[in-house]
């Protein structure tokens, strides 16, 4: 156990050092006055802004997280069903796969204002935008995973008289878990970014709304504070996905050896 934690520390050390170095350089640039303070606040200023605005940031984070989770839950579910249908019925694959790809070529920022016009300033347009940007990675990842399932293993189960749903449950779904988790890692980050972008374009609360307000006030320190907060939330969510992956796929470590 001790050895394992020592290894983790050794693995993370380069990254931690690099981040610390960047922060020190940034602080030095500000201290030496190379860039005017109103344009680039120092890390210390950012931390101060964060602390003074913590209640507001917390309240707005909750709103953004609510939108993100609602959108994510729906997006992942829709992606899941799309993948199952496309895997099961070739006709669905032929009909909807191209449509799905086209939806991904439309820039999120371009449709967000339309969604606001159609659905107003409440949560709905935000959730729709998140669904649009999250269902695709999940659907494509899962479909890939279902198709990567071992054909012989499926044949074996068929020889045992397994039904389609049993084959799905015992072979296809578990075979697609690695792809599902990869997709989830991407989509949790997308969901937060999607929520923030749609809040920019109109809304009553959330980190995106907070961002537009502090931008209009030229409060650069608060701007940075909220940017870091958004990154931190995304990282935290990704870590949660990693944790879930370890919990649900304890065999993964063994098979890599």
């Amino acid at each position, binding site marked *: 156990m001790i050895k394992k934690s020592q290894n983790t520390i050794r693995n993370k050390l380069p990254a931690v050092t690099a981040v610390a170095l960047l922060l020190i350089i940034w602080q030095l640039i500000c201290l030496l006055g190379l860039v005017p303070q109103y344009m680039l606040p120092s890390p210390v200023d950012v931390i101060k802004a964060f602390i003074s605005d913590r209640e507001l940031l917390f309240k707005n984070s909750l709103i953004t997280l609510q939108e993100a989770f609602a959108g994510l839950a729906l997006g992942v579910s829709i992606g899941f069903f799309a993948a199952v249908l496309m895997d099961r019925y070739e006709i669905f694959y032929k009909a909807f796969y191209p449509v799905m790809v086209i939806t991904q070529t439309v820039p999120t920022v371009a449709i967000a204002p339309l969604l606001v016009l159609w659905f107003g300033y409440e949560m709905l347009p935000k959730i729709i935008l998140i669904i649009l940007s999250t269902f695709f990675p999940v659907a494509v990842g899962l479909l890939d995973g279902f198709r990567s399932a*071992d054909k*012989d*293993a499926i*044949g*074996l*189960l*068929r*020889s*045992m*008289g*397994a039904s389609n749903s*049993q084959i799905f449950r*015992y*072979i296809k779904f*578990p*075979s697609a*878990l690695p792809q599902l988790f990869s997709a989830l890692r991407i989509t949790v980050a997308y969901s937060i970014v999607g929520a923030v972008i749609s809040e920019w374009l109109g809304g009553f609360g959330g980190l995106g709304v907070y961002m537009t307000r502090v931008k209009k006030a030229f409060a650069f320190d608060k701007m940075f504070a909220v940017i870091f907060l958004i990154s931190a939330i995304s990282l935290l969510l990704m870590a949660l996905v990693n944790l879930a992956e370890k919990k649900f*796929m304890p*065999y993964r470590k*063994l*098979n890599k*050896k």
Partner: protein
Amino acid sequence: MIMEKLEIKGVSKSFDGKKIIDDISLSLGQGEIVSLLGVSGGGKTTLFNIISGLTQPDCGKVYLNGEDITGTSGKISYMMQKDLLLPYRTVIDNVALPLLLKGEKKKPAREKASLLFGDFGLEGTQKKYPAQLSGGMKQRAALLRTYLFSKDVALLDEPFSALDTLTKASVHRWYLDVMEKIKLSTFFITHDIDEAILLSDRIYLLSGTPGRITDEIIIEQPRPRPDDFNLTEEFLGYKKRILNSL
């Protein structure tokens, strides 16, 4: 007339206009181990896919205990060339899978499977993942899974071909040992002449294109066989006959 466990009558199959096997008739008695010996790519696996119901024959019938089961899967247990243990399930959950497929609940299925771990020499592997087992142990687990599906008739498609020679020798001994205990009527495919003579009561030779049964050899030596059976004159006699036939 004694009723055979399994009977195959006049089975033929073509793929893309090319005949793979032609007019094959075989039988398997209660508790018998019969092997199907032939070169690789000679249609042995096609024949097994037909017997197990995965493939429909062009003509001919398959009978299990006198009942026509042609083209029906889920009646006979089938162990394929690869062990096909699912890497994401523990050994016990892999082995218990056929019971789960039949609708049993997880707990009783595990308990039932667990009872046989001893007989199959798999003690202590229940909670391990397949990646943690040696090649020989994986085959044992795969055979146990096959057995749990049906205690009636099993088809084994080159079950030991992926193992190295030394492991193979010990697995053969283990296999005959287990078969004494469970008395499973077994049909198995091999391209290893020694293995066929060592393990079976009867050998069918499949050769030519399309594949036909060209000879049937009865191994008189009763089971359990002495350890040095493969060094006897008798053994060599069988081997010579098979080599001449092929």
